[in-house]
C-alpha cells in the first residue's frame, strides 16, 4: 500500500481523462490563434475525442532529389512536348517521395493513463510509408536510442477509433520521462499543461513541430 504522499505523487505523473480533455482544449485555443492546423474530432455517442493535425514535410531523400528537381524544372518546356516514357514515370515517383504527408492524432489511453501519439505517413501520391521508411524519418537526435529500446518503441497499431493502421510511440515510457518534470513543477508550486509538455518532448521525435509560443501561451488546468 502506498502512503498518501506516495499515491498523490504517482497520480501527478499520470493524466486522468478529464484533465486530458481540458489540456487539449487549452492547447487548441492557442492553435486557433496560430492557425497551425490542429483540430478536435469527436465521435457521436462516444465521449472519446482526439486532436489531429496533418502536415507536409520533406523526406530524407531530399538531397538527391533536390538535384533532380532542379534539372526537371530547367527542362520544363522540353518535358511538356515530349511523350512521357518509363524513365519519366520513375522519376515522377521519386519526386513525390521528396515530400511526405504526416497525419498526427493525440488520443487518450485509459489503460496507461497517458496521452498517446498516433501518426501515419504517406507519399503525396497516397502510398503509405513502410515501418522502415518511418524509422528513417525519426529525428536523428533520438533514432539511435529508440532503436536500442528493448521493447517495441515504434509499432504499427490499429487506431482505437478509426480502426485503421497507424504508427504509435509506445506509451509505456511516457510516465518515466514526464515524472521528473512534473515533480519539479509540483515542488515549485507551478502548474503544467501535461499535453504541452508531453507533446513538446515526443513531437520532434516524429517530426512534429510544436512552436515555442505554446510554452507560454497555453494555460494549465486548475
Amino acid at each position, binding site marked *: 500500500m502506498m502512503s498518501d504522499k506516495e499515491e498523490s505523487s504517482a497520480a501527478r505523473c499520470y493524466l486522468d481523462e478529464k484533465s486530458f480533455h481540458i489540456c487539449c482544449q487549452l492547447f487548441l485555443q492557442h492553435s486557433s490563434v496560430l492557425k497551425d492546423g490542429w483540430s478536435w474530432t469527436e465521435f457521436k455517442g462516444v465521449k472519446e475525442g482526439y486532436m489531429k493535425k496533418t502536415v507536409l514535410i520533406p523526406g530524407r531523400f531530399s538531397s538527391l532529389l533536390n538535384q533532380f528537381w532542379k534539372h526537371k524544372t530547367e527542362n520544363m518546356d522540353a518535358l511538356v512536348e515530349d511523350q512521357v516514357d518509363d524513365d519519366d514515370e520513375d522519376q515522377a515517383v521519386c519526386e513525390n517521395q521528396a515530400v511526405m504527408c504526416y497525419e498526427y492524432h493525440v488520443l487518450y489511453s485509459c489503460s496507461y493513463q497517458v496521452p498517446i501519439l498516433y501518426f501515419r505517413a504517406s507519399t503525396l501520391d497516397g502510398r503509405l510509408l513502410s515501418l522502415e521508411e518511418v524509422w528513417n524519418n525519426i529525428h536523428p537526435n533520438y533514432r539511435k*536510442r529508440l532503436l536500442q529500446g528493448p521493447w517495441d518503441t515504434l509499432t504499427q497499431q490499429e487506431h482505437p477509433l478509426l480502426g485503421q493502421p497507424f504508427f504509435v510511440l509506445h506509451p509505456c515510457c511516457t510516465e518515466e*520521462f514526464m515524472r*521528473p518534470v512534473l515533480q*519539479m513543477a509540483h515542488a515549485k508550486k507551478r502548474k503544467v499543461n501535461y499535453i*504541452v509538455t508531453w507533446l*513538446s*518532448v515526443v513531437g*520532434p521525435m516524429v517530426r512534429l*513541430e510544436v512552436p515555442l509560443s505554446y510554452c507560454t501561451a497555453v494555460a494549465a488546468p486548475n
Partner: protein
Amino acid sequence: MSDSAESPTETQKDESSSQQSSADTGETGAAEEKKKIDVLLKAVGDTPIMKTKKWAVERGRTVQSLAQFISRFLKLEPSEQLFIYVNQSFAPSPDQEVGVLFECFGSDGKLVLHYCKSQAWG
C-alpha cells in the same frame, strides 16, 4: 551543428562585468552583438549535476548539439536520452538554436535550461 563546432566555454562573468559589456554593446551597435549567450544549466530529478553550470554558448548552436555536449560531459550511457527544457517544462525542438531560446526566454542576461536524463525507450 557538427561535432567539430566550438565547445561551449565556461564563463567567469560576474554581475559587474556583464553590465559593462552591455554598455559597450549599446555604444557600438549590431557589430558588437555577442556571438555567445550565457546559459545556466540545471539538473532535474536524478540527473547528475554538472560541476560547471554556467556556459557561454554560440547563438547558432542547436539544442541537439548542446544535449550531446551535456551527455558527453556527464558520461551518460548510450541508452540514456537527455531532454532539455526551457521555462522548466517545455522541450524545444532539437533543431532550435539556443540564440532564439535566449531571445524568448532569457532574463538577467542568461538563459536557464533544465536538463533531464531518461531511460525511456533506452
